[in-house]
């Protein structure tokens, strides 16, 4: 088992003919992902890395039985692409695109939920189940199959932490990069609930950062519903208030969203918080 993504996923790449789409289609194929189709309006009938390209999602679903989609299209067109995927009946849509307007996500995320579709992202590295499938842009070689579920708001910081975990012998069941935006699809609490239920997952790592209250809500949820050991890291302890630290969602506003508040919430929920990213592996060893 794993969370959300298994080897059964037949993946469609929206925006496959773009630079990013093509590059990561190759990398996903190399990882073992079943990339069965691509979509770029106007490019139907061509192929990218041997993958047939269609003009629309519905056609790709009909012809190639795609059941999940990963979106690389530019921000102004990302909402349109995601809705097209949801309307074609896909139940897992990963949105890699960054800088999508928040109000587009206010439209998109609740709509996806009402249709029973799980959105990952936007502005995220994607989701990966080592040994099975990857829908994302993370480097293949740092992951290893294992029993640790990883939830993260960040990309490269996750790679840093996962790399240290793998080297220390802690493989991953599934790693979900939930994204750095204020309005995201699958959030920390929902991901925690899935990992708690997943039989393959024995331990959970949460990589949080400043901004919003996702970590505080996660801590509350852990207290009540999570029996598996959880360890955490919180980025942005030295970030000044009022500044957006690279991620649209990483901002301390009106005193809310500070690292102290998040670290305290985790501590109160009995979740050890690492001072250094590499210490996550040490904390896992102690669980």
């Amino acid at each position, binding site marked *: 088992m794993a969370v959300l993504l298994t080897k059964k996923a037949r993946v469609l790449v929206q925006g496959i003919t773009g630079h990013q789409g093509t590059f990561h289609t190759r*990398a996903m194929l190399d990882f073992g992902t079943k990339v069965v189709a691509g979509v770029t309006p106007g490019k139907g009938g061509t192929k990218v890395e041997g993958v047939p390209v269609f003009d629309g999602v519905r056609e790709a679903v009909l012809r190639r039985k795609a059941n999940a989609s990963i979106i690389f299209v530019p*921000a102004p067109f990302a909402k349109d692409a995601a809705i097209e995927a949801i309307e074609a009946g896909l139940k897992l849509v990963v949105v890699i695109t960054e*800088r*999508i*307007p*928040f*109000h587009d*996500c*206010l*439209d998109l*995320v*609740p*709509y996806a939920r*009402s249709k029973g579709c799980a959105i990952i992202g936007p502005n995220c590295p994607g989701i990966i189940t080592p040994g099975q499938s990857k829908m994302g*842009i*993370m*480097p293949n*070689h740092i992951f290893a199959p294992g029993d640790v579920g990883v939830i*993260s*708001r*960040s*990309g*490269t*910081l*996750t*790679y*840093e932490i996962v*790399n240290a975990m793998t080297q220390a012998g802690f493989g991953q069941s599934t790693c979900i990069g939930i994204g*750095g935006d*204020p*309005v*995201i699809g699958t959030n920390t609490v929902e991901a925690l609930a899935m990992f708690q239920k997943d039989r393959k997952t024995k331990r959970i790592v949460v*990589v949080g*950062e*400043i901004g*919003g*209250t*996702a970590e505080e*809500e996660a801590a509350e949820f852990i207290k009540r519903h999570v029996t598996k050991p959880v360890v955490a*890291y919180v*980025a*942005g*302890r*030295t*970030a*000044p208030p009022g*500044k*957006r*630290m*690279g*991620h*649209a*969602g*990483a901002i301390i506003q*009106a*005193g809310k969203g500070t690292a102290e508040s998040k670290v305290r919430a985790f501590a109160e929920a009995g979740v050890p918080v690492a*001072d*250094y*990213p*590499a210490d996550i592996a040490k904390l896992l060893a102690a669980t």
Partner: protein
Amino acid sequence: MKFLEYKAKEIFARYDIPVPRGVVASRPDNIADPPLPCMVKAQVLVGGRGKAGGIRPASSLDEARVVGGEILGMEIHGYRVRQVYLEERLDIEKELYLSLAIDRSAREALLMASALGGLEIESVPRDEMYMEHVPAMIGLQPYVLRAILRKLGLPKEIGEQVAAIVRRAYDLFRKEDAELVEINPLVVTRDGRVVAGDAKLIVDDNAEYRHPDYAALDQDRTRLEEEAHDKGITFIQLDGDIGVIANGAGLTMATLDVLNLKGGKGGAFLDLGGTDDPEKVKQAFEILLKARPSVILLNIFGGITKADTVALGVKQALQEMGEKVPVVARIKGVNEDAAKQILRDIGTHPAETIEEAAELAVKVRAGGT
């Protein structure tokens, strides 16, 4: 994008939200025809300006110029006052509160209204605040307006004006891609009008392409931050003196945190993003060097990023600019060994881990190597 009060009020007026008459000035002798008596209000992108002496009354043109001159050039919580707004003084009967914001957890708009306006929002008791989520898919429903009027206990004529303002504010919130629309206070005047006394508006930077006319407005950036923004580089100036450059927002933040734990202090945050284009790396270094850091700490975890191309960009930037600023570099990724060799050749200090890089940066800064 944060809007100064008078700019926000211009946009409010476009949506038929009533605002007081006013004129803006950047020099006392520019003040020509203020609506008298008036309030002279400092235009800064920070709260608490009233308490700081940034809002004062004036009754004549001469007085307005004197008061305006005093407020101009004030510094309020670190923000220089460059403009004053001279606004019709309202005859206040009652002050209300109204705001619309994005609730990240609910993924919906959050509408808040209270009969206790003019206070800091945090000091308003929870049970004095009406709160309701508005799903974007559905929009603002009439029951919400009815509930607000009940909660605020407003007479019919005032209630109808408030309801209209709530509808228009929501319309503005959606169409202008706002993160926050706040009217505090929403003033009820003695002659029965409802007017936005203050106006706070923040528009989502990601939606800049839909509102190109707003792009020039953001005064919340330093000049260097603005230059970086124009080049598409995520760059923030900080209090310390060590320039931190990394790839990815989370990793850059974590690098600053580690630096702090090791006794250093970040002077700049630069997120290189996913690029390994030497030209982009060079541009990033140029911006960072203009911030005059004592040391540059470079931390790249490139799973896919080619480490040697990043190193080449660093080399080009330093050589072309003839800079002598010491660089501590930790680069992980494809062709890591080649990268290390390039970095060693140009006299930078290579490190293996973030911790080691941070320690080294602190040591180099103190003149230790």
